[in-house]
């Protein structure tokens, strides 16, 4: 077996896998943030709370109604997305003409309230959510052992990210979305209902967060703070990739997950800060982000 700089391949591959899994969550979450920011100009600080809600809705479906993982993967994003739509209609839509800061403050406040409510009713110790039977066990790949569920998380994230990218960059609906991101007034003057498109886009972005939450439920324990811990890193990912860039958010998400994993192998002390160091460097060299444009 080969060794790289004295690191056994099992360790390297193991951390690479963890990196890819973290990267999957970074990618799906930063994708949702990028889609929302692109069209709404809102920095959705409630994204982490909405991710947490996705995991909790999956848990509630299972424990209160007996609905299992697979339906929850569809239902939880719909439920949380619908809550997002209600928030957009009643509160967020009032802020579009104001500075970004107001949207950030509102969604940050909403995140605190949502997390507080869940902490109040469910505590902070975390609730278990079992891996669905079809994905238990794992594969021995020779150089490492790959748990099936972790493989599924990566595959599902790649599929969701690619589908979202395809929908936005290659379809008629996506063309409306891109055009409305650039010039909503003119798109409205062509007879398109832009406010409804904005509402649905927010619901979709929130649904993506909830989807990531359901994916995360069997890996991390379901607890009210799970989103708050993650969202700060995800924001760094979005800043590095460039606000509003779809492919940028996806590639940066996976890429930074892997870089973080590798840092854990070669310089464990740096793994918690490596993403922020990269963010600082990117901001100095290319403030609009790796995939952002100046326009």
């Amino acid at each position: 077996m080969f060794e790289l700089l004295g690191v056994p391949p099992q360790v390297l591959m193991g951390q690479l896998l963890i990196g890819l899994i973290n990267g999957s969550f970074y990618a799906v979450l930063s994708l949702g943030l990028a889609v929302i920011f692109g069209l709404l100009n809102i920095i959705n600080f409630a994204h982490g709370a909405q991710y947490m809600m996705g995991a909790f809705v999956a848990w509630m479906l299972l424990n209160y109604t007996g609905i299992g993982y697979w339906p929850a993967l569809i239902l939880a994003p719909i439920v949380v997305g619908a809550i997002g739509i209600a928030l957009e209609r009643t509160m967020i839509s009032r802020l579009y003409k104001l500075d970004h800061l107001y949207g950030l403050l509102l969604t940050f406040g909403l995140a605190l309230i949502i997390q507080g409510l869940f902490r109040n009713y469910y505590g902070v110790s975390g609730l278990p959510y079992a891996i669905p039977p079809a994905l238990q066990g794992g594969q021995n790949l020779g150089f490492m052992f790959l748990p099936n569920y972790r493989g599924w998380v990566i595959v599902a994230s790649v599929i969701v990210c690619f589908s979202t990218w395809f929908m936005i960059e290659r379809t008629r609906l996506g063309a409306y979305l891109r055009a409305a991101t650039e010039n909503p007034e003119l798109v409205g003057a062509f007879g398109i209902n832009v406010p409804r498109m904005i509402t649905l886009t927010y619901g979709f972005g929130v649904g993506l967060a909830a989807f990531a939450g359901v994916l995360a439920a069997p890996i991390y324990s379901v607890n009210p703070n799970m989103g708050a811990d993650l969202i700060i890193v995800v924001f760094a990912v979005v800043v590095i990739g460039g606000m509003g860039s779809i492919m940028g958010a996806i590639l940066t998400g996976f890429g930074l997950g892997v870089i973080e994993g590798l840092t854990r192998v070669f310089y464990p002390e740096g793994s918690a800060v490596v993403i922020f160091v990269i963010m600082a460097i990117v901001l100095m060299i290319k403030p609009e982000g790796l995939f952002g444009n100046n326009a």
Partner: protein
Amino acid sequence: MTDAATMPRTATTGEALLTVSGLEGWYGESHVLHGIDFEVRRGEVVTLLGRNGAGKTTTIKAIMGLLGKRKGSVKLEGTETIGLQARHIARLGIAICPEERGIFSSLSVEENLHLPPKLSEGGLTVERIYDLFPNLKERRRSQGTKLSGGEQQMLAIARILRTGSRFLLLDEPTEGLAPVIVQQIGRTIQALKDEGFTIILVEQNFRFAASVADRHYVVEQGRVVDMIPNADLDANIDKLHAYLGV
């Protein structure tokens, strides 16, 4: 200055498609339109002439519902549109080609062309549009804003021809373009007129305006101050020069 109420309004026959009366408009706090009155009949090409800042573009935007605040009356085929949002006004069969062209940089030429939804029957087919503007066909895969200024202008006109809207608002379509392209746009407007389109044209270049229009409204300080039928343009040329400050 001619009083709007006594202005000749019978230059051509036919029903009024658009009747604008007492239209006032604001950009934020600044009051730009102070009571615009004019009308356009079906099948006419009418220009709004006037100096920079007279309120021509603002009038177009106000008709389309793109102004933050407007007052007065804008009737389209008898339907009052002053309280409607832009998307509802668009669905009444009116389409705008804005001064800044509004080509979307994140969309290809083809996507830009297909962006405005078809709102009614009677629009031009894509084949017919590519006949009118062969350049666009060649470059349909390019990014919208990679086109030359003239091509972008053609695209901005072309995409509203697909929608079935028969009433077009063209804001300075010849601005900053080479003479050969101005001619091509002139031929296009003539072709559209022959097909029965109704057009309001905002122009600085009144030689160009004279080559395609039926009537000219002169806008000054947010009001319509005169109307000159195209046939009487030569007789009124000195007056027009005075209005335009040329």
